[in-house]
């Protein structure tokens, strides 16, 4: 009896804590939705900021963030996935692989502002890209790389070895085995890693601060060497250094809402794709 009561107390405590975590998240979201929804309208989504950013919209920032996400993934995905394939499928457990793994883990722990500084030094100054979409995408790609490598590695390791041996035993080469059996089986989990890194990339401020972001840019970027606005940086600007803080407050909430919505939308899209792939994989 005594033990039953103890159990009940323990589990009730757990429940209260976990519910309170959810409550906090919901209240943050609710707060942003409540405050941001007032700012959202067609002009807000499609127009450039006007009157010292106290009016108008955030369209250039939306487009800028979109470009940065696509640009960084263009660099990070091929690099990260091939690196992961190498370490898991070919590398074995050699010294070099172990060092690579430790480095990747360390890279994942580096603060994003350091990536920003590094990007500025290398891409903006040394390589002469200037403050540009290219430099920003490359910096964000560096940031996303460890995450993509790690999740892809885990995805590949989760593929049962019996698939590999089964394929090899039928006379398939290692490359064919990876291409035809391992990657298709790992793909849904690799997508999860991509979702995570897209979320990360689209929300980061520090790396783009020195490499791409423009304080205010009334037009859209024309080339990869142009500067661009981006949602997180725009939000930062609106919240800290606007010309009229009170007037821009609703716009800041609106920007935050759009940012969150975009991230959630991407997550939803990719999980949809992931599920349909999973079905197709075993049911083609």
């Amino acid at each position: 009896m005594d033990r039953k009561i103890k159990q009940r107390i323990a589990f009730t405590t757990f429940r209260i804590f976990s519910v309170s975590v959810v409550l906090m998240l919901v209240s943050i979201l609710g707060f942003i939705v409540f405050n941001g929804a007032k700012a959202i309208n067609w002009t807000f989504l499609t127009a450039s900021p006007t009157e010292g950013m106290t009016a108008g919209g955030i369209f250039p920032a939306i487009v800028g963030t979109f470009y940065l996400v696509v640009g960084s993934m263009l660099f990070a995905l091929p690099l990260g996935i091939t690196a992961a394939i190498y370490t898991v499928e070919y590398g074995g457990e050699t010294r070099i692989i172990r060092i690579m793994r430790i480095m990747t883990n360390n890279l994942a722990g580096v603060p994003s502002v350091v990536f920003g500084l590094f990007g500025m030094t290398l891409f903006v100054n040394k390589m002469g890209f200037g403050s540009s979409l290219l430099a920003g995408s490359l910096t964000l790609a560096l940031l996303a790389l460890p995450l993509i490598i790690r999740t892809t590695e885990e995805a590949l390791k989760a593929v049962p070895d019996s698939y590999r041996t089964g394929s090899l035993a039928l006379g398939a080469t290692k490359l064919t085995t990876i291409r035809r059996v391992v990657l298709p089986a790992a793909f849904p989990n690799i997508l999860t890693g991509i979702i995570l890194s897209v979320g990360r990339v689209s929300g980061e401020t520090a790396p783009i601060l020195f490499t791409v972001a423009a304080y205010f840019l009334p037009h859209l970027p024309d080339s990869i060497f142009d500067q661009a606005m981006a949602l997180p940086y725009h939000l930062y600007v609106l919240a800290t250094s606007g010309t009229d803080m009170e007037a821009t407050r609703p716009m800041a909430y609106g920007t935050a809402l759009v940012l969150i919505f975009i991230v959630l939308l991407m997550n939803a899209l990719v999980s949809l794709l992931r599920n349909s792939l999973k079905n197709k994989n075993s049911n083609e």
Partner: protein
Amino acid sequence: MIEAKNVNFYYGDFQALRNINMEIGQQTVTALIGPSGCGKSTFLRLFNRMNDLIENTRLEGECVVNDQNIYNRSVDVDELRKEVGMVFQKPNPFPKSIFENVAYGLRVNGNNNKKSVTQRVEESLISAALWDEVKDKLHKSAFELSGGQQQRLCIARALAVSPMVLLMDEPASALDPVSTSKIEELIHRLKTDYTIVIVTHNMQQAARVSDKTAFFMLGELVEYSDTKKMFLNPDKEATQNYITGRFG
């Protein structure tokens, strides 16, 4: 047809096989029995070079398939594995449809002729005694099949590339008695076209399916003789103790 000549095999410093000499005749079923860790699975996997996948292993001696030492430098391992198919302990179909599982071996070997692939898939499924059960759901996932059906699917998959030898590593150990007896039936029928080597922990299974039986212990081939003789009157005391359950 298959032969091991003075084979020694090492995992690092551990010697897993000790001076094995053994000849396996064409179109026979040979059972490899012995306690866990006796080297029987290692021996089986020599013949399609699956041991190559394990790091830090070393082979001395020769393994001959079709008059050729398969460990010669000139031998293409991928070609060898088409000749020497393998069925594993746990059914391991790919996460693909039933049809694609069987077609896999053909496709990776460059056969993309739709008609010939379809025909070969059907033939293989018929040989593996699975056709009647799956002919209406060829494009369903292989995972929808029962464990026993999955194992026969894996056998069909191996047969599709027309091997001469079929290696089976405890093919029925994860299956229920009904599925097991179906696999055993199948082995009996396949014997007319293939040379089959099967590792099994099930003494009665070895007795039922095989023509010859090899008893391994501590990496040595203790006894190799006709199954009928071995199960009535084995030559070696160790064999007798093992097959009558008095081991250890």
